[in-house]
């Protein structure tokens, strides 16, 4: 299970050159023009962005878009194939698959967003500290802890958290965050180590800037590009991970609609009622694809070497 692509961190790091020809700290073209340029250079990225926007809209507006209450069991219409009343059919408790798929977007996005917030913030903080104190005992301790998290297979880590805390959306976020932290930590630390040696940072240090000021003034702005890329790739990984957890019955608890849970519920009746699992599966794959494409496109776009 590639719950998280551990290589994502490397992919993201590629977004910034590593051969010493660092771009100046904050010198990017104005944003609006950048967006246009992005759309022009990265057609897949643009398509992905549009798809993602659709999913976000779906998630936000599902109470108005969904024809039925996603939890309501229509007892007389169990496992009905797609029809005008139920465009995507009904599941084995008689619930409307379309409504559940729409609401499932909300669950998946929520889990991924909160995971990124929790895991991302912790990972960036640890990475920054670690990188700033690179080589010292603080760095060593943090890095060994990160190594530990990476060396335990992700699914086992998730099993532990689920067994320890029980399945719920909150605990899914906690579990997944554990996987995200080392990746953000890795990218941030690498960048920090590099920036630390830059002349402008040395100069800042020489004139007596506090570590905090150096971090916020010079460190974080330089990190944004790789973190955006990583974020987008990890986001995709998190959506898959959420579905894997729910598939194993240790993610989103029923009856809350989640794509992973619907896959799991529907896989038992794959041959008699394929629509139960097909639509959520499609929605999941397409949205994960979109986030992956966006990540790739951003990496190419931000990578100075790609358009020499």
């Amino acid at each position, binding site marked *: *299970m*590639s*719950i998280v692509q551990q290589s994502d961190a490397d992919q993201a790091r590629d977004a910034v050159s590593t051969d010493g020809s660092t771009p100046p700290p904050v010198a990017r073209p104005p944003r609006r023009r950048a967006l246009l340029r992005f759309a022009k250079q990265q057609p897949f990225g643009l398509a992905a962005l549009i798809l993602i926007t659709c999913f976000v809209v779906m998630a936000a507006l599902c109470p108005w878009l969904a024809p039925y209450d996603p939890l309501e069991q229509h007892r007389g219409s169990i496992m009905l194939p797609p029809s005008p009343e139920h465009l995507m059919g009904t599941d084995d408790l008689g619930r409307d698959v379309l409504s559940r798929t729409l609401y499932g977007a909300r669950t998946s996005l929520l889990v991924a967003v909160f995971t990124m917030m929790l895991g991302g913030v912790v990972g960036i903080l640890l990475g920054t500290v670690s990188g700033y104190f690179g080589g010292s005992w603080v760095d060593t301790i943090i890095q060994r802890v990160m190594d530990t998290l990476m060396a335990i297979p*992700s*699914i086992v880590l998730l099993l*532990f958290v689920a067994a320890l805390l029980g399945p719920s959306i909150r605990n899914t976020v906690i579990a997944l965050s554990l996987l995200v932290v080392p990746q953000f930590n890795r990218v941030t630390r690498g960048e920090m180590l590099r920036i630390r040696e830059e002349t402008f940072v040395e100069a800042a240090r020489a004139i007596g800037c506090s570590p905090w000021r150096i971090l916020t003034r010079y460190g974080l702005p330089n990190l944004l590009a790789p973190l955006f890329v990583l974020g987008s790739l990890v986001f995709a990984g998190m959506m898959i991970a959420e579905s894997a957890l729910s598939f194993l019955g240790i993610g989103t608890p029923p009856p809350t609609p989640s794509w992973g849970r619907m896959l799991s519920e529907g896989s038992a009746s794959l041959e008699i009622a394929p629509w139960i699992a097909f639509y959520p599966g499609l929605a999941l794959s397409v949205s994960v694809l979109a986030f992956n494409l966006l990540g790739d496109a951003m*990496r190419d776009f931000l990578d100075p070497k790609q358009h020499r």
Partner: protein
Amino acid sequence: MIGYAIRRTLYGLLVLFLITTFVFVVLRLIPGDVVRLQLADAPGVTQAQVDALAAELGLDQPVFTQFWSFISGAVTGDLGTSFETRLPVTEMIVERLPATLELGLLAIMFSVVLGVPLGIISAIRHNSFLDQSLRLVSVAGISVPNFWLALLLITYLSIWFGWSQPLVYAAPWENLGTNLAIMAIPALALGTSAMAAVSRMLRSSMLEVTQSNFVRTVRSRGAPERLVILKHAGRNSILPVFTLLGLQFGNILGGTVILESIFSIPGMGSLIFTSVQMRDYPVVLGCVIFYGAVFIFVNLLVDLVYAVIDPRIRYS
């Protein structure tokens, strides 16, 4: 170089110790009592029976004593005895290891055999239509959950073609045909995402190398583009892929947990899952330590090989 290797090994051992401690503590915190679970269906269990079983499993000792006895055993290669089967954990791991290892290696092979050509083609024809569509395919590879892909394959291969995998797992030295027929789908499902990662990484590292001064020089001498990429750029750009595979190995080991169970492969992945469910602490602990050790070892190896191949890398 040697100093670097020693330091890395020591760090690896430290991480193993951290893993052990972490898993040990987590397992004790997880609710659900193994003694009660094992006696769940003996009607009218007495407290004496509960105590006797707890003593038999060594659970009557203080937690620190348990931890200490585990560590002192582990150092000598003794990972304790399973609560469930009463077999030595090392024995269980040795029995289950070949299947998981094979599955992992097959998945890696699959990812390399398909991922490398895809990456190279993408790099040669970079930004062409072919490049774009190959990238789309490889990204699609990581976008379908592998358990889902596996289930679809199982169900539809049997419905459409009346085909199902052989019933019983056979080790490759027992019956290679059976073995491969069973391993094919899970290896494919597991390898798909690694394949995508490999081709993506190879493409970008090749592009990076082809734009370096060294290759520019070669190119300026009039060498054909194809030769430039395959001969000169190829060797240098394969290195990051190597590192990537080391990291992917961790993902693949993790992936075996679900796929082995779907495909009835008696490997370590399925062992871990049931052991967590049954609260068989020694087995979980043993397996996770083992996975951790393999992961650390593989990555250490990758880094060392890397250092040997690429002398530019200095280790301070």
